[in-house]
């Protein structure tokens, strides 16, 4: 369905909601075309193709709110969703802060963000299989110690998104995404296997890393884990590579949304304007980044988006706010509504601004410590900032990687963790909406043997 048709569908549903007694409403429609393939040891394992379509409704009766969604776009399916939304409004209780944004604040025009690559959709199942095979083969050929594989994958998705509100917003855009990945396996001592996948994902097909380069990097990471062992329990510097670092940023991002603040569920509560991180830390949420995985021209409320500097040289400058969260806190929206039908703010492209040194230089500058390439588990308490997760990577001695490490945990409260970042590298790359360069924390507790 093209975007004109999608917008007609939204208008139709909007009209029915208003006729049915809604005081305000928002309707979102989405379509998608997906292809994904997986090969293992050269043989095709899975070829999957599908088209998707759905609508979602946010409906208001005065200060009462309900949401409904369906992927059944038959007349009966749409009727049901409209009926559900209207009925459920009567069940919700009055929320004085509920409501669409001031119509004057809506984006009437917005930039073309170049989020869609038509070439993505032209990849056939056969070509996708060849790309996945090439990626996996490069990993298998890289080193004789690679003896097995969890498989190589290629996927592409394209989608259309439109939104219409009774407040007068009309808008939409198309997006695309392609990804390639592989996970080779190497046999280690003691019956253990080691694997470290690697992947590339981009909105534009031509920006994807070459399949064989992805395969070789996956293999390099996998064999590097052979012989991994625990280290003794101690306090030491910890370097996070970009993949590990971004999960720390993701947890931090969840603590700077207006929702987390009015829910008193953030360790950063009452810290606005204060120093919450080291001088080296500048955290930015930029929805306008060219080709960014999380880029969006307008937010879920229909407001123009903008670049928000959340932490500047260690000082907490702003929360990320949608219309609702802003009202709750007596502030103005930052154009950060994450979802068109739910409520709440969220990140777009959230990143730690790169520093002036290379990751190699940061390593050379570390006498001894842990270099983390991956983490496991869910050990973060947003309310207190307490952080403890499983980690693996390498031990650092005299500025060089000495041996691989696994089965240890790293812990430190986020207040201290972000305050003691003492090195930020320049290797920022956007593979997903949260991205980070390599950085170093001066001292963390490492629990091992």
């Amino acid at each position, binding site marked *: 369905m093209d975007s004109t048709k999608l917008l007609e569908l939204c208008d139709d549903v909007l009209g029915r909601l208003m006729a049915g007694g809604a005081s305000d409403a928002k309707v979102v429609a989405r379509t998608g075309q997906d292809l994904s393939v997986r090969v*293992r040891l050269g*043989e095709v*394992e*899975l*070829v*999957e*193709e*599908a088209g*998707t379509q759905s609508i979602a409704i946010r409906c208001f009766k005065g200060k009462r*709110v309900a*949401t*409904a*969604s*369906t*992927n*059944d*776009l*038959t007349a009966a399916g749409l009727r*049901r969703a409209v*009926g559900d939304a209207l009925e*459920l*409004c*009567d*069940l*919700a*209780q009055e*929320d004085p802060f*509920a409501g669409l944004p001031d119509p004057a604040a809506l984006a009437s025009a917005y930039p073309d963000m170049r989020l869609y690559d038509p070439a993505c959709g032209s990849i056939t199942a056969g070509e996708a299989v060849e790309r996945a095979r090439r990626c996996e083969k490069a990993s298998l050929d890289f080193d004789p110690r690679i003896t097995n594989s*969890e498989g190589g994958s290629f996927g592409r998705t394209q989608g259309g998104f439109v939104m219409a509100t009774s407040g007068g917003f009309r808008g939409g855009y198309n997006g695309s995404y392609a990804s390639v990945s592989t996970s080779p*396996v190497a046999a*280690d001592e003691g019956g*253990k*296997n*080691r694997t470290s996948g690697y992947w590339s994902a981009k909105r534009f097909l031509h920006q994807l890393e070459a399949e064989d380069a992805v395969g070789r990097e996956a293999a390099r990471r996998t064999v590097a884990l052979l012989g991994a062992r*625990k280290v003794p*329990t*101690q306090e030491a510097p910890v370097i996070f590579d970009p993949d590990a670092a971004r999960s720390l940023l993701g947890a931090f991002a969840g603590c700077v949304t207006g929702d987390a603040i009015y*829910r*008193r*569920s953030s360790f950063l509560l009452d810290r606005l304007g204060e120093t919450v991180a080291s001088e080296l830390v500048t955290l930015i949420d930029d929805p306008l980044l060219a080709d960014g995985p999380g880029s969006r021209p307008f937010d879920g409320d229909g407001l123009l988006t903008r670049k928000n500097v959340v932490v500047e040289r260690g000082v907490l400058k702003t929360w990320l706010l949608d219309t609702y969260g802003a009202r709750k806190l007596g502030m103005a929206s930052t154009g950060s509504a994450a979802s068109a039908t739910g409520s709440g703010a969220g990140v777009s492209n959230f990143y730690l601004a790169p520093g002036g040194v290379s990751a190699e230089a940061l390593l050379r500058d570390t006498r001894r410590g842990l270099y983390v390439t991956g983490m*496991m*588990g*869910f*050990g973060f*308490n947003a*309310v*207190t900032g307490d952080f*403890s997760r*499983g980690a*693996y990577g390498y031990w650092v001695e005299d500025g060089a990687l000495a041996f691989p490490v*696994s*089965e240890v*945990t*790293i*812990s430190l409260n986020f207040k201290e963790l972000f305050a003691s970042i003492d090195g930020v590298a320049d290797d920022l790359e956007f593979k997903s909406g949260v991205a980070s360069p390599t950085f170093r924390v001066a001292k963390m*507790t*490492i*629990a*091992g*043997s």
Partner: protein
Amino acid sequence: MSTVQSAPAQQGLSLQAPFAPGAPYEIDAERAQKLLAIALRRGGDAADLFAEFVVGGSLVLEETIVKSASRGVSVGVGIRVRRGMAAGYAYTEDLAWESLVRCAETAAQIAEGQGREVGPVGLKTHPERYRVAAPSILASGHDKRELLLRADAAARAADARVQRVEASLAESYREILIATSEGVFVRDIQPMMRFGVRAIAESGGKRQSGSSGGGGRFGMEYFAQPQKDAESHAREAVRLALAMLDAREAPAGEMEVVLGPGDSGILLHEAVGHGLEADFNRKGVSNYSGRIGTPVASALCTVVDRADLDHNRGSINVDDEGNVGTSTTLIENGILRGYLHDNFSASHFKLDPTGNGRRESFRATPLPRMTNTLLLAGPHDHDEIIRSVKKGIYAQRFGGGQVDIASGDFVFSLSEAYLIEDGKLTAPVKDVNLIGNGPDALSKVTMLGNNLEVSDGIWTCGKDGQSVPVGVGCPTIKIASMTVGGTAVQKG
């Protein structure tokens, strides 16, 4: 006021799947057979059709009001063709006949050869493990709203330090239909509900949250069980938040660990369960691959996966490939006995499927997955186990866990834990992770309680991006040595 008027949110709510008998897009045995024949037109070993209809709903309370109510409908059909260890899969959300045919033709692309006949499919019966008087989604919306308001009031009344309360009820009604080229034609209705309360307590500049929840394949009768009413969950959430207000830094390093009964079954799920899912073993990538008949745990340990527990969150009558869910012994007195299979892995190992082929929805293909994974009871008394520890950690509640299948390394995070000093529980400790390696940790199980408990229904398992509801259970477990990931390094 009549009962109908007291339930305005449910007026006219239909739970008839569009593909159910008599519905506009009915898929009967004859239509299923036709589609499977199209799917196998180019050859292939087998084909299956999976139709799914889900109505989900939720109510969320915060700041003393039910702020939003939501409902969603999801419907679709997926058709899969298997050729050797390869699968072609396509799904459609449009149930018109032409779309289903196109879907079957797309899936057929995986094969290239002679077409084959598909015999008739016939309705298969299955056990009933979660029959409910009425799915909760059909219950009065006002009654459900009342539950949340009662939880809020109970939490606030429990202690003056409670600053915020959140409560939610999430429910779903899932109807599935599976037809296979082997002649299976089966339907199942899988109700699910989950209730949760979260409280935030503040005192002396400290702030902590505590949560309690439960549910399963129940209707509203869940709340009539002892200690399962809204107020009990609210008080438990408050108890936990208050207990953690005084939490001190957790120790770091290897020490004795005692895991409380019930929720600690997460250990089994991560340390053993995933590694015994047969897809990993078929591919030889699990650290349990090729070890059937050999010891992989202490002789105290017997681990089973049970799809047949009444009303449990992980229970299934049939899996998403149409096989009846079973009870499977994975480890018996420490010896590895078997894996969890879907149709692919069962045909690879030339075994009967164990009914563990599960999927998140019609948008994904089935994988071998756990249902309810239990460590069976041992000989020891709970108090005797605690008394035996000079210095260690007692873990009672958990946030979740994760495992690296290849190496067997796993972590799980504690949300309520205490120091054990000289055989007694002393101070609560802050959120902390435990890390270990599956076979290594289980070989160090030196005491096992006689108090098997099944965790209340809150767990969701993720694998390859697919989430499915699961259950866990175990008695009190003592592990002689595990790495505790606290911040307090022991000096000297």
